[in-house]
Structures are given as C-alpha cells and as structure tokens.
C-alpha cells in the first residue's frame, strides 16, 4: 500500500471527516494536563507541543474507574444489569509506538483463558492511528526494547510528521480499508518517504537512555533471593501508586461494590502492587515490606510476563521515571541486577 500524505493544515478536514462515524480522541492539554480527550472539532496544534500523555492510552480501554454492572433488589430478588461500553467506534489519533506496543502486550493478558469483556469490547471498537516520534524524551528508552520510535506494527495507521505535511501509511488491514474510503489524501512522493525514513533513523539515535536486558531472566532468577539488593533499591521508594498507574503495561485492578444495600454498582478500579493492602490477608501479608513489593513489580514485568506471554511487559515509555516523585529509575534497578 503506497504512502499517503496530507498537508498539516488540512488535518482539520481529515479529522472532521473521520469524526462522522467515529469519535476522534486525540491529545489535548485544555485541562492543564496532557491527556487523550475527544476532539473539540477545532484545534489540532498538538503536533507542535505533543510529546506523550501522562496517563497512558491504556486508560481509554482500562479506565481508572469502570462500572461493571448494576444490581437492584427487586421484589423477587436481585436483578443484574450489565453496563457494557457503548457501541460507538472510536479513533485514537496520535498514539505513540511505545503505547501501541503496550496495548498489544496487555491484550494478551486480558484475552488469556478468560476473556475480559469490557477491555476487549473497547479494543475491538477502536482504531489506533499512531504518530511516530521525532523528538523522543530524555526519559525514553524504547530502543533497547526493540521498539523503534518511528515505526510501529501495533497500530492500524501510522502517521509521520514530515515538517510541513503528514505521511500516512496503512499498517493493518482495518487501517487500509479506512484509508481507502477517505478522500482528500494525495499520494506521497518518494522524497517524503526518504525524509520520513531518515527522520525515523535520527529519532532512534536520539534515544540516549537504555536498559541492559542481556540474559536478564537468569540474572533476575538468581538475584531473587538477594534481599540486600532489593532493600537498597527500594529504600527511597515511597510506595505510592504512580509508577503502576502511569505505566502503559500495568493492568492490576480491584473490584468493589458501591456502599449501598438496596441498589448500586460493582466497580472495577486500578490497583497497585505497591500498596501493602494489595496482598493483605486476614492472617498474614506475604508482601508487607516495601522491598518485596518493588521486587514483585519488576519480576512480574521482566521475568514472569515473558515466561507466560513471551514478551517483557515494558515498552520503555519512561513515564515511571519521569513521574516518580523520588526519581526511582527502572533502568538503574534492572541494570544493576
């Protein structure tokens, strides 16, 4: 499928055409924070300032708070009304390659053995339009997880910002069908393609930070018992939930009921293995100490997930490094094993 391109100032028309039968979601900073929000129909200046959102796009599929079903005590007992996400298709515009890969990673878990209806329904209803990174952040280290900032197979359509216009490339079959229906796209010339390739190469070099994963699994298994290492690594950690909530591949959750007897909702919400209550049982709590919880988090991502699903549950987006109040750095800890 040849490359398409569109002038950046025509992006507006392109998006409004899309939003006829899709809800378009793209990065916005109206509320002071960079978040994915439904398009307000007008401004598309995010191309100039957008690096990445604080809360990852996983929140669009696995929201921080999600109502699962409503129960009501009728005359002859409880009725349950399922609260499924609405049917409307949505387009996530501007998702970065690292976040797209992260979605692919947690797809595996949510689909393993028991299908998670809420997450998978939203995934089926949405179409990812990726935006390759030209200016990676200082905290990014996606290169060392062989995710190239400029290229992504995990999206349906990939756009690359080539100075004045946007190179559009259909990746998935769904993406190409959508592109074929779209009008107002002209074929990209070869020099745009070469500029895009060279942009991608330069973006990859710009990534200074990297994480050394060589022989990680054996190293981690042997280092599991090394209590002193984990205690030192977790001494400054505050055991808050930021690193797990801003991480695109973290998927742990908690299920609670609304606190009313007659009628209420069951709610799924994010939870973090960093909190002591995560594994607290009436008799004892296997992971009461802070260092055990930090060890569990890193082992789950870099040892257990690869054993179960064959891929490391980290995409090097660097959010946990940037957002951590005390600057605990995963590359330092994993590198130091």
């Amino acid at each position, binding site marked *: 499928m040849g490359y398409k391109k569109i002038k950046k100032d025509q992006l507006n028309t392109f998006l409004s055409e899309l939003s006829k039968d899709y809800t378009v979601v793209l990065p916005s900073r109206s*509320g*002071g*924070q960079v978040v994915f929000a439904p398009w307000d129909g007008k401004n598309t200046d995010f191309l100039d*300032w957008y*690096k990445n959102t*604080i*809360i990852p796009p996983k929140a669009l599929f696995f929201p*921080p*708070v999600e109502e699962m079903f409503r129960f009501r005590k009728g005359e002859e007992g409880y009725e349950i009304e399922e609260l499924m996400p609405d049917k409307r298709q949505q387009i996530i515009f501007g998702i970065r390659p690292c976040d797209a890969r992260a979605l692919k990673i947690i797809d595996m878990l949510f689909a393993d053995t028991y299908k998670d209806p809420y997450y998978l329904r939203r995934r089926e209803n949405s179409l990812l339009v990726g935006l390759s990174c030209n*200016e990676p*952040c*200082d*905290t990014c280290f996606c290169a060392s997880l062989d995710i190239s900032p400029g290229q992504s197979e995990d999206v349906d359509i990939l756009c690359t910002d080539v100075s004045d216009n946007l190179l559009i490339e259909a990746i998935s079959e769904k993406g190409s069908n959508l592109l074929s229906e779209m009008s107002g796209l002209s074929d990209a010339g070869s020099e745009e393609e070469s500029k895009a390739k060279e942009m991608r190469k330069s973006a990859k070099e710009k990534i200074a*930070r990297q994480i050394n994963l060589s022989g990680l699994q054996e190293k981690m298994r042997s280092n599991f018992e090394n209590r002193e290492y984990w205690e030192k690594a977790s*001494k*400054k950690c*505050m*055991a*808050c*939930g*930021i690193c797990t*909530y*801003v991480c695109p591949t973290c998927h742990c959750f*908690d299920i*609670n009921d*609304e*606190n009313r007897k007659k009628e209420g909702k069951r*709610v*799924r*919400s*994010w939870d*973090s293995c960093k*909190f002591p*209550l995560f594994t607290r049982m009436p008799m004892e709590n296997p992971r009461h100490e802070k260092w055990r919880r930090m060890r569990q988090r890193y082992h789950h991502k870099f040892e257990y997930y690869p054993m179960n699903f064959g891929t490391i549950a980290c995409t090097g987006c660097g959010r946990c*490094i*940037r*957002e951590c*109040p*005390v*600057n*605990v*750095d995963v*590359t*330092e800890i994993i590198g130091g094993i």
Partner: protein
Amino acid sequence: MENKLKEEARKLLKEGKVDYIVGYGKGTVKFRTSPLITNKEEDIEGLVINPFIANNLSRYPAEIKGKLGIVVKGCDSRSLVSLIQDNKVKRDDIVILGVPCEGVVDIKKLVEQIGADIDQVKEIDKEGDNLIVKMDGSKKTVLFGDVIFDKCFGCEYPTPLEYDILLGSEVSPRVELEKSLKKIKEFEDINAPERWRYWKEQFSKCIRCYACRNVCPACFCERCFVDVNIPQWITTYGSWQDNLVFQLIRTLHVAGRCSDCGECERSCPVGITLRSLQRKMVEEVKGLFNYETGVDKDAPPVFTHYEATDPEEFIK
C-alpha cells in the same frame, strides 16, 4: 556547600555516629535530584546541593530505623521538628545537616519562561541571582526569582531552625507573601458554587495513586484512615466525591503539621492544585491559634492541647 556536606557526612559515617546518611543525590532525569540513602562511604561522593533539591527528606526518619544523618532545607526541617513533636522521631536519633535554602527551581515555571521543552535544555547553572539556561546552540538567562516554587516566596524560615551542622551561612527570608498566596487569594475571590465546581473538576482527575499521602512527612500513619473498611467511610475506587472527601480529611489531619514543602502538589501526576488546600490551612492555623508548624520542638502538637481563649465566635 556541597563539599562541606560530603566532609561532614563522611565524618559522621566514619565515627559511626549515624547508620545512614539521607541526602540528595544526582537524579537520573536532568535537573532533578533523587534521595540518596546510604551507609557506605563511597556513595557519599554522590551527594549534591543544587537549586533542584525539591524532595522533602524528613519523610524517611519515620520509616528507617536507626540513627540518621539527614540533609534538610528550611521547610523540611520544620517537618522534621513536627515529627519530633509527634513522638515519631527522637531528636537524638538524627543528626540534622541544615541547608540554608535560597529557593528551589520549579521546572514547570522554567519551561514556561524559556518557552522550549525541558528535553532541549542541556545545562542550567546559577550565577548570582539569575540562571543561565544552555540549549544546543542558544543560551537564555532567566531571573532565579521568577522560576522558584510559589512556596519559596512565602518562606519565613529558609535557614533550618533546628540543626546540628549548618552547611552554609544564614539566608535572609524572602517574605513575599502575596506572591506565595496569589493562587489562594485568586481562588477565594470566586463565589462558593464556582469554587465547589473547581474542586469537583480537580478531583475527578484524581486516580488515587496516594502519592500526595505517601510523600507527605506529616502523613506517617501505619494504616491510613482510607484503608479502614469497617466502616467504609471512603470508597477504594476513585469517584470524585470520595477523592474530595479523602483530601479534605487528609488536609485536616495535616493541618498544624504542614510546613508548606509543596511536595504534594509537585508529586501529583494529574496536577491537582493541592497546595492551595494545604497552604490555606497553614494560614488558618496561624490565624486561629497563632501556631506555626515545626518552629518549637517542645511545643505540643496544635490539636492535642487547647487554650481557654481559643476563638469561638463562630459557635452560637
């Protein structure tokens, strides 16, 4: 000032006066420092003092057992003293290395001032009262006073009141209260329903990561009231009502112990203006009971004793 700190820290460790040194180490992210907690002498070299030392280290003595040598700025030292008042830290268990602080740079303000992204900035160094910001190819000077945290404007005690070793000469307080309270005054001018709607929006962003609680030195409880499930006062999932109630009760718990170190607002990943709540309480407690946090380590905590002349005009 850094060399004096390293020298003192090494001495403390060598003489075995302290088990751990808690100080600021170079962060792996540019222009950020990260707490450095070590008992090995070779790590002491990593200690730094620069205009980016934002963390409030007095959170650690409550967690780490044993004797600690701890580096504190003005506001941190007041949190430490408040912990001593709360019997959480024994004064002779800690050796306080006081840093007279001229203010800490707020990266968000710096980015606004220079108009470029922080990743482009290669180097920042401080000369006298302005900062030289070096980017690849261009250089900008910014007035230091324009980019420090709001809290630093209203700082009455830049030099720690309680210290064993002072790492530099005293610093005169920079009491520009109206700048420090600008946000709070602005906020108070809008009418009540608007204010409520503002907090409703703010706390619908909250994802309950509890960073504001875990970062705050005044929040040292073993088990927080939020984790109580019999009765379930506050839901564990983040509905905006419960987030707001959680923060209001936390603010009341911290009132009288908050030294306005601004860590809660700085750490909040979704950028909720928490300092407007806490700083308001600092003003109220000073106004009502003429009590300032962490100024006198023998004074009883403000809510465990009372005066017969406490204000009560609001009580019918």
